[in-house]
């Protein structure tokens, strides 16, 4: 069973760091020493007691911007991941249960979407869609749901031929029951293990879009956008742009550590590799 002692060191590290980021994101207005968009000093001040991480390209407190940026980054990435999971797994399960032409149409459609690199297709679509956060979440979520669909369908096809599903069908349960009461609980552990990886992908994808100037628009800022704002300073030896970039990396690595541990645990439950 899951006891605190059984959690390996790397997973502890991941859990604590991820927890810190989420805490900062949720309580941003309370934790941040300065408001998000207030100019409090000179341009690109070095680190000091008043401004722990220095100031940014307009003289705003970088630490406060980072904390508010955590909020935007994590919120958008989480919503996009939630959308891609709901959409991908429901469509994947349905395709596996119904089969036939529905399965064929959906699967070939997903093949087609995956034949274009995600970033390129996102750029194509964003060139005509209005630039706001809702569009961003929809585009990220729908494009990413193709990956979830493939996994969910593969898992559900296996479960669909199990005796208990057969039994449920024979007693006359509807498709909704089969999908949500029979397949979903049994497909949950591989999906949860995938969740962390998809979330990291969403964070990196959002950051890349914002870095290219096509994601979150100023004065709102996520970490990718902050790298863009401060990148001109790099050639003058001012490392302000490296801080949000490093934050993205640290968040991604710590979520990865947790996801790795969950993946190992779920393979354990199936009688797989014997590690904690």
């Amino acid at each position, binding site marked *: 069973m899951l006891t605190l002692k059984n959690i390996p060191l790397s997973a502890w590290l991941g859990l604590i760091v991820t927890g810190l980021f989420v805490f900062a994101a949720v309580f941003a207005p309370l934790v941040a020493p300065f408001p998000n968009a207030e100019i409090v000093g000179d341009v690109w001040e070095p680190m000091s007691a008043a401004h722990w991480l220095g100031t940014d390209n307009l003289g705003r407190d970088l630490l406060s911007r980072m904390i508010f940026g955590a909020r935007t980054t994590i919120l958008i990435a989480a919503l996009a991941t939630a959308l891609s999971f709901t959409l991908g797994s429901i469509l994947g399960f349905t395709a596996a249960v119904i089969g036939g032409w529905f399965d064929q149409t959906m699967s070939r459609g997903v093949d087609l979407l995956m034949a274009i690199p995600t970033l*390129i297709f996102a750029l194509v*679509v964003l060139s005509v869609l209005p630039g706001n956060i809702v569009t961003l979440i929809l585009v990220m979520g729908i494009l990413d749901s193709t990956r979830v669909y493939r996994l969910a369908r593969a898992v559900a096809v296996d479960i669909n031929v199990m005796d208990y599903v057969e039994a449920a069908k024979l007693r006359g349960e509807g498709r909704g029951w089969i999908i949500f009461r029979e397949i979903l609980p049994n497909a949950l552990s591989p999906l949860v293990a995938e969740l962390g990886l998809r979330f990291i992908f969403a964070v*990196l994808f959002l950051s890349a879009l914002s870095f290219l100037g096509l994601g979150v628009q100023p004065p709102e800022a996520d970490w990718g956008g902050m790298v863009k704002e401060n990148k001109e300073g790099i050639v003058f030896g001012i490392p302000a742009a490296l801080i949000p970039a490093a934050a993205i990396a640290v968040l991604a690595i710590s979520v990865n550590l947790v996801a790795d541990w969950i993946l190992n645990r779920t393979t354990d439950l199936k009688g797989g590799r014997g590690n904690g």
Partner: protein
Amino acid sequence: MASLLKLVAQRIALGLLLLLAVSVLIFVGTQILPGDVAQSILGQSATPQALANLREQLGLNDPAYVRYFHWLWGMLHGDMGTALSNGQDIATSLSGRLKNTLFLAFWAAIVSVPLAIILGLIAVRHKNGFVDKLISGLTLASISLPEFFIGYLLIYFVAVQMQWFPSVSTVYDSMSFLERMKAIALPAATLTLVVLAHMMRMTRAAILNVMQSAYIETAELKGLTPFEIIRRHAFPNAIAPIVNVVMLNLAYLVVGVVVVEVIFVYPGMGQYLVDHVAKRDVPVVQACGLIFAAVYIGLNIIADITAIVSNPRLRHPK
């Protein structure tokens, strides 16, 4: 032999069909909104008469499928239309940039592919040892690092602090080969670092998979030297998975190049695409998107064909 040719031809035909479907998707993707190109060129204050004239001129009154075939016909003949934002011919602006992008991706591939395979072999040689663990750790880190983190770290330390290479990779036609290489050193290094760890890890898995087969054990037991085992038994079976790994990562490189070009202000296709997405210049975005997708699909076809050619089992589908 005839069946092999047939399989290869089938694969290529399938790829072309996919590309056609992708072109429809890209075209439809830019028509989602009923928003009007004429309106976005002329702005909100345009008179209705001017709008109607421009619509007529751009052929916007035709139904969507007519415009699609017109666009596709043009693309196939190298006529990509003109950019909305500055009225320049897209094909002319693109050709130089495409060359630059391929130049950068080519050198990144030349460095990263052999390096990844050699490091992968070293990891197999020291399986579960310190080197192997180090490589796993680096892989975990490298899939989590955004491209711009690696890029700006290199700029900050190598270009600004040590001043070994320029921080901005400007290239122009009159540059000598050496100057050009110096300019792309940092972007190529960034791209290499982005794909290296992943490629290495997959190479390691592919070789391990082969080395653990029963026929390798048999070869060992009948007394072949390690070199002979690798030459006669392991290598021929490992080609297909390794080529697959390499192609997958080259395809990834095609996408990574977009961000890396923006970091280093490199005059390639990625930067051109990003600039024009921001300007909502649809014809340029369509053209660039189609070219990127074509390169991506092309690399995947090459991977499949290599797998068919190098693996006799795939030549006789059941």
